[in-house]
Protein backbone atom coordinates (compact mmCIF):
# COMPACT_ATOMS: atom_id res chain seq x y z
CA UNK A 1 0.00 0.00 0.00
CA UNK A 2 1.29 3.45 -0.92
CA UNK A 3 1.69 5.49 2.26
CA UNK A 4 2.84 8.71 0.66
CA UNK A 5 1.31 10.68 -2.21
CA UNK A 6 4.46 12.68 -2.94
CA UNK A 7 6.94 11.70 -5.68
CA UNK A 8 10.40 13.16 -5.09
CA UNK A 9 11.74 15.31 -7.88
CA UNK A 10 13.32 18.62 -8.83
CA UNK A 11 11.15 19.73 -11.73
CA UNK A 12 9.84 23.29 -11.99
CA UNK A 13 6.49 22.04 -10.69
CA UNK A 14 8.15 20.52 -7.62
CA UNK A 15 9.85 23.86 -6.96
CA UNK A 16 6.72 25.89 -7.63
CA UNK A 17 5.16 27.39 -4.51
CA UNK A 18 2.78 24.80 -2.95
CA UNK A 19 0.30 27.48 -1.90
CA UNK A 20 -0.03 28.67 -5.48
CA UNK A 21 -0.44 25.10 -6.72
CA UNK A 22 -3.24 24.37 -4.25
CA UNK A 23 -5.05 27.62 -5.08
CA UNK A 24 -4.78 26.83 -8.81
CA UNK A 25 -6.82 23.66 -8.27
CA UNK A 26 -9.94 25.82 -7.92
CA UNK A 27 -9.87 27.52 -11.36
CA UNK A 28 -8.62 24.24 -12.86
CA UNK A 29 -11.64 22.42 -11.51
CA UNK A 30 -14.02 25.20 -12.50
CA UNK A 31 -12.81 25.66 -16.09
CA UNK A 32 -13.90 22.14 -17.04
CA UNK A 33 -17.49 22.96 -16.05
CA UNK A 34 -17.87 26.04 -18.26
CA UNK A 35 -20.30 25.63 -21.18
CA UNK A 36 -17.71 25.85 -23.94
CA UNK A 37 -17.15 23.86 -27.12
CA UNK A 38 -15.12 20.67 -26.57
CA UNK A 39 -12.40 22.05 -28.86
CA UNK A 40 -11.67 24.70 -26.23
CA UNK A 41 -10.95 22.11 -23.55
CA UNK A 42 -8.70 19.94 -25.73
CA UNK A 43 -5.60 22.17 -25.37
CA UNK A 44 -6.12 22.38 -21.59
CA UNK A 45 -6.30 18.58 -21.33
CA UNK A 46 -3.27 18.11 -23.54
CA UNK A 47 -1.33 20.70 -21.53
CA UNK A 48 -2.11 18.96 -18.24
CA UNK A 49 -1.15 15.54 -19.62
CA UNK A 50 2.08 17.02 -21.00
CA UNK A 51 2.72 18.64 -17.61
CA UNK A 52 2.51 15.26 -15.84
CA UNK A 53 4.81 13.69 -18.44
CA UNK A 54 7.33 16.52 -18.22
CA UNK A 55 7.48 16.84 -14.44
CA UNK A 56 6.92 13.27 -13.22
CA UNK A 57 8.09 11.31 -16.25
CA UNK A 58 6.12 9.63 -19.07
CA UNK A 59 5.88 6.45 -16.99
CA UNK A 60 3.65 8.26 -14.50
CA UNK A 61 0.96 8.63 -17.18
CA UNK A 62 0.20 4.91 -17.08
CA UNK A 63 -1.07 4.83 -13.51
CA UNK A 64 -3.90 7.38 -13.92
CA UNK A 65 -4.77 6.14 -17.41
CA UNK A 66 -5.12 2.55 -16.20
CA UNK A 67 -7.23 3.66 -13.25
CA UNK A 68 -9.63 5.89 -15.17
CA UNK A 69 -9.74 3.79 -18.38
CA UNK A 70 -12.88 1.87 -17.36
CA UNK A 71 -14.57 5.12 -16.31
CA UNK A 72 -13.88 6.67 -19.72
CA UNK A 73 -15.36 3.62 -21.45
CA UNK A 74 -18.43 3.87 -19.24
CA UNK A 75 -18.79 7.57 -20.06
CA UNK A 76 -18.64 6.80 -23.80
CA UNK A 77 -21.24 4.05 -23.46
CA UNK A 78 -23.71 5.66 -21.06
CA UNK A 79 -23.67 9.36 -21.97
CA UNK A 80 -25.21 9.24 -25.51
CA UNK A 81 -28.44 7.49 -24.38
CA UNK A 82 -29.13 10.42 -22.02
CA UNK A 83 -28.63 13.04 -24.80
CA UNK A 84 -30.76 12.13 -27.79
CA UNK A 85 -31.41 15.60 -29.25
CA UNK A 86 -29.69 16.89 -32.37
CA UNK A 87 -28.88 15.25 -35.70
CA UNK A 88 -28.57 11.45 -35.59
CA UNK A 89 -24.99 10.36 -36.24
CA UNK A 90 -25.37 6.62 -35.88
CA UNK A 91 -28.46 4.47 -36.16
CA UNK A 92 -28.81 0.72 -35.64
CA UNK A 93 -31.93 -0.99 -36.99
CA UNK A 94 -33.77 2.33 -37.03
CA UNK A 95 -32.83 3.12 -33.43
CA UNK A 96 -30.79 6.29 -32.92
CA UNK A 97 -27.68 5.37 -30.93
CA UNK A 98 -25.64 8.58 -31.07
CA UNK A 99 -26.67 12.12 -31.97
CA UNK A 100 -24.57 15.25 -32.41
CA UNK A 101 -25.56 16.49 -28.96
CA UNK A 102 -24.75 13.09 -27.46
CA UNK A 103 -21.34 13.03 -29.10
CA UNK A 104 -20.64 16.58 -27.96
CA UNK A 105 -21.67 15.85 -24.38
CA UNK A 106 -19.63 12.62 -24.34
CA UNK A 107 -16.55 14.47 -25.56
CA UNK A 108 -17.06 17.17 -22.93
CA UNK A 109 -17.40 14.58 -20.15
CA UNK A 110 -14.30 12.68 -21.28
CA UNK A 111 -12.24 15.88 -21.47
CA UNK A 112 -13.59 17.02 -18.09
CA UNK A 113 -12.68 13.76 -16.40
CA UNK A 114 -9.25 13.61 -18.05
CA UNK A 115 -8.41 17.22 -17.27
CA UNK A 116 -9.49 17.10 -13.63
CA UNK A 117 -7.74 13.77 -13.04
CA UNK A 118 -4.40 14.84 -14.51
CA UNK A 119 -4.54 18.32 -13.02
CA UNK A 120 -5.06 17.03 -9.49
CA UNK A 121 -2.56 14.21 -10.09
CA UNK A 122 0.13 16.68 -11.13
CA UNK A 123 -0.38 18.87 -8.06
CA UNK A 124 -0.80 16.11 -5.47
CA UNK A 125 2.30 14.23 -6.64
CA UNK A 126 4.49 17.32 -6.45
CA UNK A 127 3.45 18.63 -3.02
CA UNK A 128 5.14 16.97 -0.06
CA UNK A 129 3.07 16.26 3.08
CA UNK A 130 5.08 18.87 5.01
CA UNK A 131 4.42 21.55 2.39
CA UNK A 132 0.75 20.57 2.32
CA UNK A 133 0.38 21.12 6.06
CA UNK A 134 2.43 24.35 5.99
CA UNK A 135 0.21 25.61 3.16
CA UNK A 136 -2.91 24.77 5.12
CA UNK A 137 -1.45 26.74 8.04
CA UNK A 138 -0.77 29.67 5.73
CA UNK A 139 -4.43 29.45 4.63
CA UNK A 140 -5.29 29.99 8.32
CA UNK A 141 -6.40 26.45 9.06
CA UNK A 142 -6.30 26.17 12.88
CA UNK A 143 -3.15 24.76 14.46
CA UNK A 144 -5.12 21.85 15.95
CA UNK A 145 -6.47 20.83 12.55
CA UNK A 146 -2.98 20.88 11.01
CA UNK A 147 -1.73 18.80 13.93
CA UNK A 148 -4.47 16.25 13.25
CA UNK A 149 -3.40 15.96 9.59
CA UNK A 150 0.28 15.58 10.55
CA UNK A 151 -0.37 12.93 13.19
CA UNK A 152 -2.71 11.03 10.86
CA UNK A 153 -0.10 11.02 8.06
CA UNK A 154 2.54 9.83 10.52
CA UNK A 155 0.30 7.11 11.99
CA UNK A 156 -0.79 5.60 8.67
CA UNK A 157 2.46 3.69 7.91
CA UNK A 158 2.63 2.18 11.41
CA UNK A 159 -1.03 1.15 11.23
CA UNK A 160 -0.38 -0.56 7.90
CA UNK A 161 2.44 -2.45 9.59
CA UNK A 162 0.12 -3.37 12.46
CA UNK A 163 -2.48 -4.62 9.97
CA UNK A 164 0.04 -6.89 8.23
CA UNK A 165 1.42 -8.18 11.56
CA UNK A 166 -2.05 -9.00 12.85
CA UNK A 167 -2.97 -10.60 9.53
CA UNK A 168 0.16 -12.80 9.66
CA UNK A 169 -0.55 -13.72 13.29
CA UNK A 170 -4.11 -14.77 12.49
CA UNK A 171 -2.94 -16.67 9.44
CA UNK A 172 -0.35 -18.56 11.51
CA UNK A 173 -2.93 -19.29 14.19
CA UNK A 174 -5.32 -20.84 11.68
CA UNK A 175 -2.64 -22.49 9.50
CA UNK A 176 -3.23 -25.92 11.01
CA UNK A 177 -7.00 -25.71 10.66
CA UNK A 178 -7.19 -24.92 6.95
CA UNK A 179 -6.17 -27.41 4.31
CA UNK A 180 -6.06 -24.99 1.44
CA UNK A 181 -4.79 -21.45 1.55
CA UNK A 182 -7.48 -19.03 0.51
CA UNK A 183 -6.41 -16.13 -1.60
CA UNK A 184 -9.04 -13.75 -0.36
CA UNK A 185 -10.64 -13.66 3.05
CA UNK A 186 -14.41 -13.69 3.38
CA UNK A 187 -15.84 -10.56 4.96
CA UNK A 188 -16.65 -12.43 8.16
CA UNK A 189 -13.05 -13.52 8.46
CA UNK A 190 -12.09 -9.84 8.70
CA UNK A 191 -13.86 -9.48 12.07
CA UNK A 192 -11.06 -10.80 14.30
CA UNK A 193 -8.49 -8.92 12.20
CA UNK A 194 -10.39 -5.66 12.42
CA UNK A 195 -11.06 -6.06 16.15
CA UNK A 196 -7.37 -6.62 16.90
CA UNK A 197 -6.22 -3.72 14.70
CA UNK A 198 -8.83 -1.34 16.10
CA UNK A 199 -7.91 -2.17 19.69
CA UNK A 200 -4.22 -1.61 18.89
CA UNK A 201 -5.12 1.71 17.30
CA UNK A 202 -7.37 3.06 20.08
CA UNK A 203 -4.75 2.11 22.67
CA UNK A 204 -2.46 4.63 21.01
CA UNK A 205 -4.90 7.49 21.64
CA UNK A 206 -4.12 8.18 25.32
CA UNK A 207 -0.40 7.74 24.63
CA UNK A 208 -0.54 10.26 21.81
CA UNK A 209 -2.59 12.64 23.96
CA UNK A 210 0.00 12.40 26.73
CA UNK A 211 2.77 13.12 24.23
CA UNK A 212 0.92 16.21 22.99
CA UNK A 213 0.39 17.51 26.51
CA UNK A 214 4.00 16.90 27.49
CA UNK A 215 5.04 18.94 24.43
CA UNK A 216 2.94 21.84 25.59
CA UNK A 217 -0.18 21.49 23.47
CA UNK A 218 -2.89 23.68 24.93
CA UNK A 219 -0.53 26.25 26.46
CA UNK A 220 -0.91 29.91 25.59
CA UNK A 221 2.79 30.59 24.98
CA UNK A 222 3.96 31.65 21.52
CA UNK A 223 4.43 28.71 19.17
CA UNK A 224 7.56 28.39 17.02
CA UNK A 225 7.81 26.43 13.80
CA UNK A 226 10.52 23.96 12.75
CA UNK A 227 10.02 24.79 9.08
CA UNK A 228 8.22 27.41 7.03
CA UNK A 229 7.38 28.10 3.41
CA UNK A 230 9.66 30.52 1.54
CA UNK A 231 8.69 34.17 1.29
CA UNK A 232 10.22 36.93 -0.79
CA UNK A 233 10.81 37.42 -4.55
CA UNK A 234 10.47 33.76 -5.46
CA UNK A 235 7.11 33.36 -3.75
CA UNK A 236 5.93 36.61 -5.34
CA UNK A 237 7.07 35.41 -8.79
CA UNK A 238 5.16 32.13 -8.32
CA UNK A 239 2.08 34.06 -7.19
CA UNK A 240 2.09 36.17 -10.38
CA UNK A 241 2.59 33.08 -12.54
CA UNK A 242 -0.30 31.37 -10.73
CA UNK A 243 -2.48 34.42 -11.30
CA UNK A 244 -1.72 34.30 -15.03
CA UNK A 245 -2.49 30.57 -15.19
CA UNK A 246 -5.73 31.07 -13.25
CA UNK A 247 -6.79 33.76 -15.74
CA UNK A 248 -6.09 31.32 -18.57
CA UNK A 249 -8.33 28.73 -16.92
CA UNK A 250 -11.15 31.23 -16.31
CA UNK A 251 -10.95 33.13 -19.65
CA UNK A 252 -13.15 30.70 -21.67
CA UNK A 253 -16.11 31.49 -19.42
CA UNK A 254 -16.11 35.13 -20.58
CA UNK A 255 -15.82 34.48 -24.31
CA UNK A 256 -19.12 34.25 -26.22
CA UNK A 257 -18.86 30.89 -28.07
Amino acid sequence: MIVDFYKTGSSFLHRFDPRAKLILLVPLFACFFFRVPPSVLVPYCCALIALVAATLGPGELLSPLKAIGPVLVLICLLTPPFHRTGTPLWQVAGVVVVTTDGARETTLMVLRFLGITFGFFAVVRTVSPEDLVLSLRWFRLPYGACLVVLIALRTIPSLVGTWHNVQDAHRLRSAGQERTRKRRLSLGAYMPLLTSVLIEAVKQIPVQAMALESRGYGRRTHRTSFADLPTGPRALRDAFIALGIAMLFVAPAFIPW
Partner: protein
Amino acid sequence: MNDERPALSPAFRIASIAILAAVTTVLTRVVQIPTVARGYINLGDVAIVFTALTFGPFSAALSGGLGTALADLLSGPFAFWAPISLVVHGLQGLVVGVIAAARPTNIVVRIIAGVAGMAIVAGGYFVAGGFITGWGPSLVDVPANILQGGVGVVLGILLAIAVARAYPPVRQWKW
Protein backbone atom coordinates in the same frame (compact mmCIF):
# COMPACT_ATOMS: atom_id res chain seq x y z
CA MET B 1 -0.95 4.50 32.62
CA ASN B 2 -4.40 5.85 33.29
CA ASP B 3 -6.64 4.85 30.41
CA GLU B 4 -9.66 6.52 31.96
CA ARG B 5 -8.52 10.11 31.34
CA PRO B 6 -11.32 12.60 30.64
CA ALA B 7 -12.22 12.53 26.97
CA LEU B 8 -12.83 16.30 26.84
CA SER B 9 -9.17 17.36 27.01
CA PRO B 10 -8.15 19.09 23.74
CA ALA B 11 -5.05 16.95 23.39
CA PHE B 12 -7.13 13.79 23.70
CA ARG B 13 -9.59 15.00 21.07
CA ILE B 14 -6.76 15.86 18.68
CA ALA B 15 -5.16 12.46 19.24
CA SER B 16 -8.43 10.55 18.85
CA ILE B 17 -9.42 12.32 15.62
CA ALA B 18 -5.95 11.86 14.12
CA ILE B 19 -5.61 8.18 14.95
CA LEU B 20 -9.18 7.36 13.94
CA ALA B 21 -8.60 9.23 10.67
CA ALA B 22 -5.52 7.09 10.11
CA VAL B 23 -7.59 3.97 10.83
CA THR B 24 -10.18 5.10 8.29
CA THR B 25 -7.46 5.72 5.69
CA VAL B 26 -5.87 2.32 6.24
CA LEU B 27 -9.18 0.45 6.09
CA THR B 28 -10.12 2.39 2.94
CA ARG B 29 -6.84 1.56 1.22
CA VAL B 30 -5.94 -1.92 2.53
CA VAL B 31 -9.01 -3.80 1.27
CA GLN B 32 -10.08 -2.55 -2.15
CA ILE B 33 -12.66 -4.22 -4.32
CA PRO B 34 -12.62 -2.55 -7.78
CA THR B 35 -15.80 -1.10 -9.30
CA VAL B 36 -16.15 0.59 -12.64
CA ALA B 37 -17.04 4.23 -12.06
CA ARG B 38 -16.03 5.25 -8.54
CA GLY B 39 -12.79 3.28 -8.41
CA TYR B 40 -13.14 0.82 -5.58
CA ILE B 41 -15.29 -0.21 -2.61
CA ASN B 42 -13.55 -0.68 0.67
CA LEU B 43 -13.89 -1.03 4.44
CA GLY B 44 -13.71 2.70 5.11
CA ASP B 45 -17.40 2.80 6.00
CA VAL B 46 -16.73 0.17 8.66
CA ALA B 47 -14.30 2.55 10.35
CA ILE B 48 -16.71 5.49 10.13
CA VAL B 49 -19.66 3.57 11.58
CA PHE B 50 -17.42 2.13 14.32
CA THR B 51 -16.14 5.61 15.19
CA ALA B 52 -19.63 7.10 15.23
CA LEU B 53 -20.98 4.42 17.56
CA THR B 54 -17.95 4.35 19.86
CA PHE B 55 -16.56 7.89 19.90
CA GLY B 56 -19.60 9.97 18.95
CA PRO B 57 -20.73 12.10 16.02
CA PHE B 58 -18.02 14.78 16.06
CA SER B 59 -15.15 12.30 16.09
CA ALA B 60 -16.80 10.37 13.29
CA ALA B 61 -17.46 13.48 11.19
CA LEU B 62 -13.92 14.80 11.46
CA SER B 63 -12.01 11.51 11.32
CA GLY B 64 -14.29 9.99 8.68
CA GLY B 65 -14.06 12.98 6.37
CA LEU B 66 -10.32 13.46 6.82
CA GLY B 67 -9.53 9.74 6.63
CA THR B 68 -11.34 9.17 3.36
CA ALA B 69 -9.92 12.38 1.89
CA LEU B 70 -6.39 11.25 2.73
CA ALA B 71 -7.15 7.85 1.20
CA ASP B 72 -8.23 9.54 -2.03
CA LEU B 73 -5.04 11.64 -2.04
CA LEU B 74 -2.97 8.49 -1.55
CA SER B 75 -4.76 6.78 -4.44
CA GLY B 76 -3.13 9.17 -6.94
CA PRO B 77 -5.48 9.21 -9.95
CA PHE B 78 -8.60 9.70 -7.82
CA ALA B 79 -7.16 12.56 -5.76
CA PHE B 80 -9.84 14.96 -7.01
CA TRP B 81 -12.45 13.00 -5.04
CA ALA B 82 -10.74 14.11 -1.78
CA PRO B 83 -12.82 17.27 -1.20
CA ILE B 84 -16.01 15.37 -2.10
CA SER B 85 -15.15 12.49 0.25
CA LEU B 86 -14.33 15.00 2.99
CA VAL B 87 -17.87 16.37 2.85
CA VAL B 88 -19.83 13.18 2.09
CA HIS B 89 -18.17 10.91 4.63
CA GLY B 90 -17.97 13.70 7.19
CA LEU B 91 -21.73 14.08 6.89
CA GLN B 92 -22.13 10.31 7.08
CA GLY B 93 -20.20 10.14 10.35
CA LEU B 94 -22.12 13.06 11.81
CA VAL B 95 -25.55 11.67 10.94
CA VAL B 96 -24.77 8.12 12.09
CA GLY B 97 -23.40 9.44 15.38
CA VAL B 98 -26.27 11.82 16.03
CA ILE B 99 -29.00 9.23 15.34
CA ALA B 100 -27.21 6.49 17.32
CA ALA B 101 -26.76 8.88 20.27
CA ALA B 102 -30.55 8.96 20.76
CA ARG B 103 -30.43 5.38 22.07
CA PRO B 104 -26.75 4.36 22.28
CA THR B 105 -27.24 0.65 23.05
CA ASN B 106 -30.34 -0.01 20.93
CA ILE B 107 -29.41 -2.21 17.95
CA VAL B 108 -32.41 -1.09 15.86
CA VAL B 109 -31.49 2.57 16.27
CA ARG B 110 -27.91 1.74 15.30
CA ILE B 111 -29.10 0.01 12.14
CA ILE B 112 -31.33 2.97 11.28
CA ALA B 113 -28.38 5.28 11.83
CA GLY B 114 -26.21 3.13 9.58
CA VAL B 115 -28.82 3.05 6.84
CA ALA B 116 -29.14 6.83 6.98
CA GLY B 117 -25.38 7.05 6.56
CA MET B 118 -25.56 4.66 3.60
CA ALA B 119 -28.13 6.87 1.92
CA ILE B 120 -25.95 9.94 2.38
CA VAL B 121 -22.92 8.22 0.85
CA ALA B 122 -24.79 6.72 -2.10
CA GLY B 123 -26.67 9.96 -2.76
CA GLY B 124 -23.68 12.20 -2.24
CA TYR B 125 -21.42 10.31 -4.62
CA PHE B 126 -24.26 9.97 -7.15
CA VAL B 127 -24.77 13.73 -7.26
CA ALA B 128 -21.06 14.55 -7.31
CA GLY B 129 -20.33 11.87 -9.88
CA GLY B 130 -23.23 13.09 -11.99
CA PHE B 131 -21.48 16.42 -12.53
CA ILE B 132 -18.03 14.97 -13.10
CA THR B 133 -18.63 11.79 -15.13
CA GLY B 134 -22.28 12.14 -16.15
CA TRP B 135 -25.47 10.71 -14.64
CA GLY B 136 -25.28 7.38 -16.46
CA PRO B 137 -21.86 6.29 -15.17
CA SER B 138 -22.69 7.71 -11.76
CA LEU B 139 -25.86 5.63 -11.57
CA VAL B 140 -23.85 2.46 -12.23
CA ASP B 141 -21.90 3.02 -9.04
CA VAL B 142 -24.90 3.41 -6.73
CA PRO B 143 -25.35 -0.35 -6.06
CA ALA B 144 -21.64 -0.67 -5.25
CA ASN B 145 -21.83 2.25 -2.82
CA ILE B 146 -24.92 0.78 -1.19
CA LEU B 147 -23.16 -2.59 -0.88
CA GLN B 148 -20.12 -0.87 0.64
CA GLY B 149 -22.36 1.03 3.04
CA GLY B 150 -24.23 -2.14 4.01
CA VAL B 151 -20.99 -3.94 4.80
CA GLY B 152 -19.94 -0.88 6.79
CA VAL B 153 -23.10 -0.90 8.86
CA VAL B 154 -22.98 -4.60 9.71
CA LEU B 155 -19.28 -4.82 10.47
CA GLY B 156 -19.20 -1.39 12.11
CA ILE B 157 -21.93 -2.31 14.62
CA LEU B 158 -20.34 -5.67 15.37
CA LEU B 159 -16.93 -4.06 15.85
CA ALA B 160 -18.32 -1.39 18.15
CA ILE B 161 -19.74 -4.12 20.37
CA ALA B 162 -16.61 -6.32 20.15
CA VAL B 163 -14.10 -3.54 20.86
CA ALA B 164 -16.16 -2.16 23.77
CA ARG B 165 -16.20 -5.64 25.31
CA ALA B 166 -12.52 -6.36 24.69
CA TYR B 167 -11.26 -2.90 25.72
CA PRO B 168 -13.73 -1.32 28.20
CA PRO B 169 -11.93 2.06 28.66
CA VAL B 170 -13.11 2.99 25.17
CA ARG B 171 -16.67 3.35 26.52
CA GLN B 172 -15.70 6.59 28.29
CA TRP B 173 -14.18 8.26 25.25
CA LYS B 174 -17.33 9.41 23.53
CA TRP B 175 -17.71 13.17 22.96
